[in-house]
Every structure is written in C-alpha cells, then in structure tokens.
C-alpha cells in the first residue's frame, strides 16, 4: 500500500441535511460504489427515522432516497447492511431491532427482533451474513441466526459485561464476535464446538493495559489481524493477534495490546474506522475528524507505530458520532454528527 504523508487534504464533498435531530450512525451499503452501482448509505437518528441516501451518478451528489419511519418508536441508534447489501438491520432504543428489505427501491420492515429488556445500541452482521448480533443496556449480547423467510432465531444470549454494551462487531473473516462496553472492557466471543455454545474467550480489560473508561467502538483492518478501539478515556488502542494461528482456526489466537494513540483527542472518541488502505479515521466529541496512518520510519527506530495524518478542525458544528469509509474505489469518508447533518468527505493527496 502506498505511503501517506502530509500533503493530504480532506475535502468536504457534500453536506446532507434532513434529519431533525442528532445523527447517531451511518453505514455504507457494501454492494454499492463499484461497477457503476451508485453509492448508497443509510443513516439513523434521534428523530426515530432511518434515511437512505443514494448518489446521483450524473451530479455525483447524494440525495435522500427513502425515509424509514413509523416503525421505531424511539431513537434509532445504529444500522448495518448485510454483506449482500439486501438487508438493513436497525437497532433502536425502543428495545427492538428491525430488519428492512430493499424491494425494488423501497424498503419494508420484514422482521422485528424482540428480546432485549430495553435500549438496543448496536447491531452487526457476520461475514457470511448468516448471523446477526445485537447488544444493549441490559448488559447482554444476543446472537441471532437468519432463517429462511426472513425468520430470525435467537441462537444465544451472552452475559458477561457488567454494564451496558455499547457496540458489537463481527470479525471480518471469522465467526468471532467482539463487544465493547461501558464497563471499559472489550470481550471476544466464540462458539465452542457447534452446539450454540457461545462463550467469552477473552476479555481485554484494564489489566491487559486496555481502556480506562467506556469503550465506544472498534474496527478491524482488512486482513482482520489488527483492531483499533476508541474510548471515553481519549485514547485509541491498537490490538493484534497472530494471523496464521487464527487462519488455521483449530485453536483460538488471543489478542494483545500493541500500542495506544494518546494525546491526540481532548474529548470522548465515539467512532473509529479503518480503511482498506490502512487509514484510520476517528470521530470525536471535539467536532474534529482525525486520520492516522502507519508510521514506516518507526519500524527502524522504536518510535510510535502510527502517526497523525491530518486533523480536520470543526468538521461539524457539534459532536461527531460516526465516521465510515466508503467501499469501492474512491477514498470517501462519511461522518454523522449531533448537528443533524451528515458530511461526505473525499481524501485527496496533493
């Protein structure tokens, strides 16, 4: 991969208005943005709606294609596309998770998953799209299996976190689930054997020089042997596992702390995302977007492994809740903010 240096610019491409309350998160449709399919992403908000945005190929600008409302009765906290891009899962404070299917352009709610006692805060599809994970304030993580006919069956309820669970994320290649929580820890879950027997196989807590406050999000590199987590303790942490042992699959490869990016942020970091080319974006409550890249010099002298590529001051007028790199060729980054807007950025190297 090419070597990023200073002389990059994060150019605002478009500002999307429409949500009447803070935008909590957004998700690019993985099946778009290449081979002439226009870019599509979904955003969800405190206004209880989900909006689908589609790029107009002629103007290159995004427009709101659909508003998914009157299903969730409270804030929609997060959304996730199935790998195929056919299904959209949305998690809401109303304790339900909704599954939407794109039928000829318009979306209909094909199923609602009930089980959490209260707010559902995050939802994630596994690589194959056969499993769905949700988590919430009830401290539990639920794993659902997709059945024929949009049926979803609860495979297992994972209890281990001592506080509400902020985010769940499947490993990009394997059926290992990661969850991070208000209890400052990250937990790794896997199915021991094949009898729906999901167990916590590792906890990355303060003892493993983990985070000292709420862990808000995590993101993997493409190969899946590295993971960044971001936290209320104002740090980003990089974790690593032995990829070969992991691929072999017959035994679990534990994760270990690699490095901590500290001193860059001065308010809570809500979101971190790792681009295909290895650029890590972070969005925080200080209204700034920051980009980090691997620091090649450091390999020789034991300097920091990662360095700040650029910092976008006042990227939004208020907190930034989510930053997501687009799929496809372009280096597009989308950010969602408390100011009710979504911005699409393009990373240009000068």
């Amino acid at each position: 991969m090419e070597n990023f240096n200073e002389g990059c610019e994060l150019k605002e491409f478009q500002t999307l208005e429409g949500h009447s309350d803070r935008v909590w998160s957004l998700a690019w449709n993985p099946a778009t943005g290449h081979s002439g399919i226009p870019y599509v992403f979904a955003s969800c908000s405190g206004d209880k709606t989900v909006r689908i945005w589609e790029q107009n190929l002629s103007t290159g600008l995004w427009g709101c294609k659909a508003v998914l409302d009157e299903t969730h009765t409270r804030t929609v906290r997060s959304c996730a596309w199935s790998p195929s891009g056919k299904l959209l899962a949305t998690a809401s404070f109303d304790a339900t998770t909704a599954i939407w299917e794109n039928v000829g352009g318009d979306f209909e709610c094909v199923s609602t998953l009930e089980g959490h006692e209260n707010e559902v805060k995050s939802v994630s599809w596994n690589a194959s799209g056969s499993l769905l994970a949700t988590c919430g304030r009830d401290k539990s993580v639920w794993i659902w299996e997709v059945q024929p006919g949009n049926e979803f069956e609860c495979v297992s309820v994972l209890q281990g976190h001592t506080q509400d669970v902020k985010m769940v994320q499947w490993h990009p290649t394997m059926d290992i689930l990661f969850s991070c929580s208000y209890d400052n820890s990250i937990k790794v879950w896997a199915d021991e054997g094949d009898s729906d027997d999901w167990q916590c196989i590792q906890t990355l807590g303060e003892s493993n020089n983990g985070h000292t406050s709420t862990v808000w999000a995590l993101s993997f590199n493409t190969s899946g042997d590295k993971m960044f987590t971001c936290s209320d303790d104002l740090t980003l942490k990089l974790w690593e596992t032995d990829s070969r042992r992991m691929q072999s699959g017959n035994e679990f490869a534990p994760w270990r702390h690699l490095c901590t990016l500290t001193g860059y942020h001065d308010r809570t970091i809500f979101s971190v995302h790792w681009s295909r080319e290895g650029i890590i974006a972070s969005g925080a409550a200080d209204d700034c977007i920051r980009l980090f890249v691997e620091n090649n010099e450091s390999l020789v002298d034991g300097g920091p492994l990662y360095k700040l590529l650029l910092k976008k001051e006042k990227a939004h007028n208020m907190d930034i809740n989510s930053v997501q790199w687009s799929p496809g060729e372009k280096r597009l980054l989308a950010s969602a903010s408390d100011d009710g807007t979504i911005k699409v950025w393009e990373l240009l190297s000068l």
Partner: protein
Amino acid sequence: MVSGLINANPIIYEKKERRARPTPTFTDDGAAEPIDQQEIFDHIRDIKDPEHPYSLEELKVINEDAIEVDDQHSYVRVTFTPTVEHCSMATVIGLCLRVKLMRSLPSRYKVDIIVAPGSHSTEAAVNKQLNDKERVAAALENPNLLDMVDECLAPSFG
C-alpha cells in the same frame, strides 16, 4: 427505590440577590457581551430540587463559583454538591442541569456536569453516567424521567 424522601429535611440557604448588571448603554450597541459565570448561574439557579420545593441555589447544590466557563472555547463545567452523600437523586439533579444548559446555551457549547469531589459516595459512577450522552439521550426518551426533569425546570413561581 427507597420510599419516602432521600433527605427529608435539608438545610435551606439564603437566595443570593440577583446581581443587577449595569444596563448596557446602547451607544456601544456593537460591543459583544460574552457568556459568563453569572449568566450560566442565572440559567440554573432556579431549577427546583426533585424532592423539595426549593431551588438548587437555596439548597446550595450549586453556587456561582462552582461554574467554570470559557466562552471563547465554548466550554462550561458545572460542579454541583448533592444535599446528602448518598443522594440517589444526584443523577436526576445532574440531568436537570445538563438539560437546562442544553436548552439555554448555543449548540457550539461543550458541557461537563460533575459532582463536587468527596460530596457523593458513588462520585465516579455518577459523573460517568451524567457525561455519557447516549445514556442521557435514552433517559430523555423515558417519559417518567422527562416529566420529572420538566417539573424541576418549570419556571419558578417565586
């Protein structure tokens, strides 16, 4: 939940006289008046305590000096002191403070609400919760809580 009041008979303190500001002379209509301690205090002084008919000021839960404001960097920190060490109402009070400021301050502002050090048994926990915006957001969608908060924020008759 403990039935009955957490702190049945709190101490009531004098209300501080509202400091009259020098009436701005309209000759310098252009001059800006940055948001300051007193202005913030005036926003929150009349918030009612969830379980008493008194204002937070009267209960000395807040006072002007415990407010830190930096208009240039759009930052406010309010430190409040629950009436009793184990006051389970601390979170609700904090919530009221946050909501009131959310409604009164420009959106550019970053607000931190914290319990005065050593004034509460589960200080850290309370602070963490009050400054987790996700949980605050969830709280404000809970009708019971919202009613309670609005009740406290209702403009005081006195």
